[in-house]
């Protein structure tokens, strides 16, 4: 655990649906400028936890603090304005809007002009609109989407949709970016690019909470990792420690199997992943 006070801290958070406890007394702390991974088998409670952390669901018990502020019952819009952004598991381009407009929409809360300024077309409003449009274009350029700016967002190929998803979230100028399975469906080249992107975000002072099934990808970029299973935290700590931990293997493979040096997922992606063991 870092000595710096965490950016996002969940304490003893519990959420049950009907009779099923999806998240069971989970505590998690994400430091600033850290890439924190969240993994676990299907049904481990990751989606619910993401939903809780991003304000889409309220926990039954426990507390969530963002930058020291209690945000347990705060909704997603307010959280976004406080600096917590997220992407969604399935790419969610906003239908009926162009690629550029998708990013511009993320800047809505940055506009100071209200209805009257818009109707009167004040110089201040026009300047603001121009400046923010330029910012949106810059962001698109960073992600290689500038040439697609005026295309309908839903026409983008899958890989670009993922980038749009992240570009949009970054447009809100977050301090914490929550990425929900960003690598799913990407080819190896795209996954590598994604890793670079995440590294740049961290370098830019943005903390990242990364949820993914691609274990090798996750461990290659995360500083800290939390493993979830059956709604509980199985093990949590620096990536290297967790990677070598028996508990991680047990979560995926079950207990008491001969040691398998290749956790599931690595065979299909990077046969030469063994270098990870050396960390």
């Amino acid at each position, binding site marked *: 655990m870092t000595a710096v006070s965490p950016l996002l801290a969940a304490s003893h958070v519990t959420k049950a649906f009907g009779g099923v406890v999806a998240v069971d007394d989970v505590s998690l702390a994400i430091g600033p400028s850290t890439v924190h991974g969240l993994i676990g088998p299907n049904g481990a409670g990751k989606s619910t936890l993401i939903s809780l952390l991003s304000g889409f669901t309220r926990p039954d018990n426990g507390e969530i603090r963002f930058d020291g502020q209690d945000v347990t019952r705060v909704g997603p819009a307010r959280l976004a304005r406080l600096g917590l*952004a997220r992407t969604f598991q399935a790419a*969610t381009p906003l239908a*009926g*809007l162009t690629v550029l*407009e998708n990013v511009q*929409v*993320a800047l809505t809360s940055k506009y100071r002009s209200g209805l009257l300024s818009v*109707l009167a077309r004040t110089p201040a*409003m026009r300047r603001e609109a121009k400046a923010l449009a330029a910012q949106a274009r810059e962001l698109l350029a960073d992600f290689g989407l500038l040439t697609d700016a005026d295309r309908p967002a839903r026409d983008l190929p899958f890989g670009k949709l993922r980038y749009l998803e992240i570009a949009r979230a970054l447009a809100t100028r977050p301090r914490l970016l929550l990425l929900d399975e960003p690598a799913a469906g990407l080819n190896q080249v795209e996954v590598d690019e994604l890793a670079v992107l995440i590294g740049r975000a961290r370098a830019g002072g943005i903390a990242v909470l990364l949820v993914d099934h691609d274990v090798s990808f996750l461990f290659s970029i995360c500083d800290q990792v939390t493993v979830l299973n059956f709604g509980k935290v199985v093990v949590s700590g620096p990536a290297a420690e967790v990677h070598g931990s028996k508990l991680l293997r047990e979560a995926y493979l079950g207990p008491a199997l001969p040691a398998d040096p290749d956790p599931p997922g690595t065979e299909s992606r990077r046969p030469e992943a063994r270098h990870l063991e050396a960390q």
Partner: protein
Amino acid sequence: MMSRAWRARDGLVLAAAAVAVIATGLSGSSYWIYSLCLVGIYAIVAVGFNIALGLAGQVSFAQVAFMAVGGYATGLLTTKAHASPWLALLASVVLGAVLAFFLNLPFLRLRGHYLGMATLALALGVQSFAENAGGITGGALGVFGVPSLTLGSFSLAAHSRFFVLVWLACGLCLAVYQLTARSHIGRAWRAVAARPDVSASLGIDVPRARILALVLAGAMAALSGGLLAEFLNYVAPDYFGLVMIGNIFFMVIVGGMGSLAGPLVGAAFVVLVPQEMSSLGQWQGVVLLAILLGVLVLWPTGLLGDPSAAGSITALLPARLRARPARVAENGS
């Protein structure tokens, strides 16, 4: 988002409409001037609804209720309180906006069907009240003798003069529509219409965006109702029932949701087509509604809607006969 093609077509129709309006104004034909006065009045409530539904995706059946509020407020303020017609009109618009704010507030949590049902109940309730609260609203007979507008000694009672006012008001509403639609406000509306959850995660205040759209829609509906009252010098509950609800939806849907000129086309259709039908006598109502239904079925995205979004007409054939497999899409909320 309007593609280039769509925007071009929209602009062309708008220009044609402007020409038609000016030509009519100059023509002196009392029939056409009267008709286009009505078209202008209907277009105003349609533009308002285009903001609520076409941009922000709010399926509200209550638009007609605010039109009734506007009509009755104008009618009653002028006849009972002897207010000046201009003041009454202004007060009606403000009242429409305020009521739209408060009445839609509890509905914000409702989605899809439920919003539709609640607003429908509201609209029918308002009409029923107008019909039955004889003491206040004059009951089924309505309010007579609503005075026309005057500018000092210059009376606007003549239709040819009222025509100018109506189309100025309509132009104003179109301007409001266009300015908001092209701004960050309009983008936020369209985002909320597409995915309110994603919009929230991007920092958009979803309830605020919705209410803003509904308040603008309500204000325009009230303006339309007030102008109607002063045009006909008469208000009655009949105008604000299921038929008008159907008309309002029709104008926006068939005109083309999210387009600028769409409501104009829809309004023209709704006003002019029945007038051509008057020779049918008893069958007028049926034929008209049948035409409405037919157009709805054949042009679901509207005559001026997004051309790329229209389902092809071959979609009407049974699945076996179609070359491509059926598109799969669930009804959005």
